[in-house]
């Protein structure tokens, strides 16, 4: 038996233990020590994830005990989460006031990444659920880390309540699914569906709805999105960024696995693009398509009224989840590639946006959009970076967000779902309003007494590292797209077939 798929997980675990021990020994006196150990663990996990996979790739999917499967998709996602964790730690160390960013914070981030790593490899419903919960529980505590902050506590409680209920619902749904499948592995599930055990069963619909509810909570899809704005607003900006990026991506990864396994995923192409509205691919696909439209529309409309930067970004991230769901609904190789591509764009844009939000909150003491007033003249670099990010989030060329959206809508149109695509595109217009409103405050309104907003070198560097790809990949995204297509090609559209 080849245990090598577990190397990144082992590294992360060692990192967690080391941080705990060092934190106890040093008693919080040398925060840089624990921090660097945590960063090292993340970097190590990312590197070994990149280096190891060649074995499991060519000869089809190789599973570990039938529970974990190492493929390029899981590798990519592991790296994705490590990067997010890395940036989150850096942003927190330098970011918003954080009374004790000590050992426990690092441990929680590492645990969440560990959970995501396992999640990415899970091809078994039990493993999937456990990994999912690991991520969630770490998230609950991360949100409420600032004990003295009542908003943070409120956010934590909300998150835990919503999360707990949705997990329970999902678990119940999974139990039904297992009943249908006759086993916990996704492969068993796909066999059962192939054998026709679920056709015409009302209980299968119930199971699908319940399982999807669990995922919808994680990716904050409408109508399970209510927690997100409050939680993001209450959490430190860097943690909110972590939740918005890594936690959401985790939900999508799990969804991809499950949708793939249900084989309902093979959506027939729309016969007449102008009269077909929803993809016809079974309960789960219809649910996803409807949720996609609702999520992007509600997210964008609600964002119009936000006055606080973090809340605005929260609603915007809800809207983006809607765009991504659209890709799951049309389900093709191109769509999966576009999903990966979009997630990468999303990573850079959102991590950077939350980073800047954190900097502004730290400097100004408030996360109000009004706090940005006149910043266009006080700190041109940061304002330009924010302008690039917001334009990119809107999906305007020549930024990365546009390339991602182009591929996204191309995949949707390619399958013949013109109306879904047009609704998505028009949503982009709505989103421009609130992004541009921030820019309006930033650039168009003069401030009488706003002090110069200083940026430390480390912050500036981190910003640059995140913003430059948004610029560069917007014009030269060929390499990134090619890579996304390669990865998507390796991921079987329907699990258990290879």
């Amino acid at each position, binding site marked *: 038996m080849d245990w090598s798929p577990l190397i990144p997980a082992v590294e992360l675990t060692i990192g967690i233990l080391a941080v705990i021990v060092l934190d106890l020994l040093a008693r919080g006196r040398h925060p840089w020590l624990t921090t660097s150990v945590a960063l090292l663990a993340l970097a190590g996990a990312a590197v070994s994830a990149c280096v190891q996979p060649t074995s499991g790739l060519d000869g089809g999917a190789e599973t570990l005990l039938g529970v974990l499967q190492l493929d390029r998709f899981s590798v990519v996602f592991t790296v994705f989460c490590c990067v997010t964790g890395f940036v989150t730690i850096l942003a927190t160390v330098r970011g918003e006031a954080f009374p004790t960013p000590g050992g426990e914070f690092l441990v929680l981030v590492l645990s969440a990444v560990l959970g995501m790593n396992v999640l990415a490899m899970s091809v078994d419903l039990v493993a999937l659920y456990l990994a999912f919960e690991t991520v969630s529980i770490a998230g609950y505590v991360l949100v409420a880390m600032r004990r003295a902050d009542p908003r943070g506590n409120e956010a934590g409680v909300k998150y835990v309540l919503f999360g707990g209920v949705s997990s329970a619902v999902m678990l119940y749904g999974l139990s039904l699914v297992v009943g249908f499948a006759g086993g916990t592995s996704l492969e068993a599930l796909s066999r059962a569906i192939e054998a026709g055990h679920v056709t015409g069963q009302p209980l299968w619909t119930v199971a699908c709805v319940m399982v999807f509810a669990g995922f919808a909570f994680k990716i904050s899809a409408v109508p399970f999105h209510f927690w997100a704005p409050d939680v993001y607003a209450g959490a430190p900006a860097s943690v909110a960024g972590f939740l918005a990026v890594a936690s959401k991506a985790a939900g999508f990864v799990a969804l991809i696995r499950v949708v793939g396994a249900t084989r309902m995923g093979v959506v027939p192409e729309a016969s007449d693009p102008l009269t077909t509205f929803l993809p016809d691919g079974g309960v789960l696909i219809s649910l996803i398509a409807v949720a996609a439209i609702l999520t992007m529309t509600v997210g964008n409309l609600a964002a119009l009224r936000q006055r606080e930067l973090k809340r605005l970004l929260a609603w915007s991230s809800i809207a983006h989840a809607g765009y991504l769901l659209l890709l799951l609904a049309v389900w093709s190789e191109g769509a999966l590639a576009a999903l990966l591509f979009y997630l990468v764009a999303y990573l850079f844009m959102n991590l950077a946006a939350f980073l800047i939000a954190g900097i502004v909150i730290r400097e100004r003491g408030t996360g109000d959009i009004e706090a940005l007033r006149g910043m266009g003249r006080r700190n041109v670099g940061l304002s330009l970076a924010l302008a690039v990010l917001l334009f990119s989030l809107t999906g305007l*060329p020549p930024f990365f967000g546009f390339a991602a959206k182009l591929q996204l*809508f191309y995949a949707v149109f390619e399958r013949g779902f013109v109306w879904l695509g047009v609704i998505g*595109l028009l949503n982009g217009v709505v989103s421009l309003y609130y992004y*541009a409103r921030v820019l309006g405050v930033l650039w*168009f309104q003069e401030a009488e007494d706003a002090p110069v907003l200083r940026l430390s070198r480390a912050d500036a560097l981190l910003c640059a590292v995140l913003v430059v790809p948004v610029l560069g990949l917007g014009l030269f995204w060929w390499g990134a*797209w090619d890579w996304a297509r390669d990865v998507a090609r390796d991921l079987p559209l329907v699990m258990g077939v290879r």
Partner: protein
Amino acid sequence: MSMLTTIVFLPLAAMLLCWVAPARLARVINVVACSAVMVLAVVLWIQLDPALSGYQFVQTASWLPGVVSEQGIQYYVGLDGIGLALVLLTAFVSLTAAIASWNVEKQVRGYHMMFLLLLTGMLGVFVALDLFLFYVFWEVMLLPMYFLIGIWGGPRRQYAAIKFFLYTLFGSVLLLAGVILVVLKTGSWSIPEITELAKAAVASGGDGGILGSASLCLAAFIGMFIGFAVKIPSFPFHTWLPDAHVEAPTPISMILAGVLLKMGGYGLIRVAYPFFPQAAVDCGAVISVLSAIAIVYGAFVAMAQTDFKRMIAYSSVSHMGFVTLGLAAGTETAINGAMYMMLAHGTISAMLFMIVGVIYERAHHREIARFGGLAWVMPKYFVFASIAFFASLGLPGGSGFVAEITTFVGAFDGPHRLWAIVSLLGVVITAAYYLRTLQRVYLLETPEVYKDTSAYPDLSVREWVVLAPLALVTIYMGILPATVMDIYKSVVHETLVPLLSAAGSRFGG
């Protein structure tokens, strides 16, 4: 490096230069860069062979291979007569606008950088032959425009900037939907290649067009038409224009009216009509009606304005209606007239906005009712104002007359004659509001306030340098229209007209 790449990216290079150079040099850099662009445009004019209808100065380079097709997205630029005419217009209007920007004092460096970025975007649109490149330039233009209105605009600038941005983005996404459909079905990003496919589709006599389905073609055409119509702006997508114009600073209004509105017409001529000739012909009646409404309604609304600048803005809506009217008619003369209208309106409206700017700078208001007798205080200014007014209302000798008469003559030959006749009404109303404004602002009695010659000096050197060339070109285009029409005539004759007439003849229309 080819000429076209140079002309497009020269402003961008100048923008970077602006960034590093001292702020006081920014305006010099801007004017020098615009002059250089003008010179290059004239060189292109001399070198381009007007007899050829194909693209010249073509340059291609691999950019994003493998996206959709093997060849993928290319850096692909080229110029034909239509493109050249609009490049010349862009260069000319931008140069005058750059000179008009000489006295901008707020955040000088940023202003000129945005101005130059805008210029790159505009020129890029007119030379891009790859759909992706075209779309990128199309959108890139929005960003500097948004900031130029939003930072350097009037009191309601934030509202106007976002309204402009939202409207145009709304159009853009519909355009993007059309582009994606086209690229999806044809597997090509190249505009000339897709045009050839459309030609073949029409020639084959099939129903499907390039998308393989007539209804899909119609949907894509409508999407693209709306996308371009927002920019033109056609009725009923015109409501952003008055706000944007009123709030934008004078030079930006000049560019907005002089060049940006032309992009909509250009998009129709270059993309929407050649790609979907059948759908275009089928929609001809609707477009004619919308054009007639734009011409007549725009003129009426212009007449009702009390704000000088707003009046000019609505006159743009009215005049740009001729562009869509001519295109909808589909005859060669009408299309030539529509093209000529774009060029004529480009120079005349730039001049008109400068004229409003001149008086606004002195009086700090634009209420038509509060002016009067300015001709006696500023006689030279009055001369330019009358040239612009008369050219715009279509007096023979000005470029507007040539454009209108050609469009009308062509449209009478076309299938939608009734709407051409209705549009004639617009000309009368236009004459009415211009003459009335001329009388109320420049003639009659001079109120006491305006008699102070120190507060109301006649034209400064800067204003002379802006207005005189615009006036000269306007008169030149009115007297020797053939020399200008020759630039693009053969392209219209050999590319657009055969397509549309082939598509039209299928129904015996």
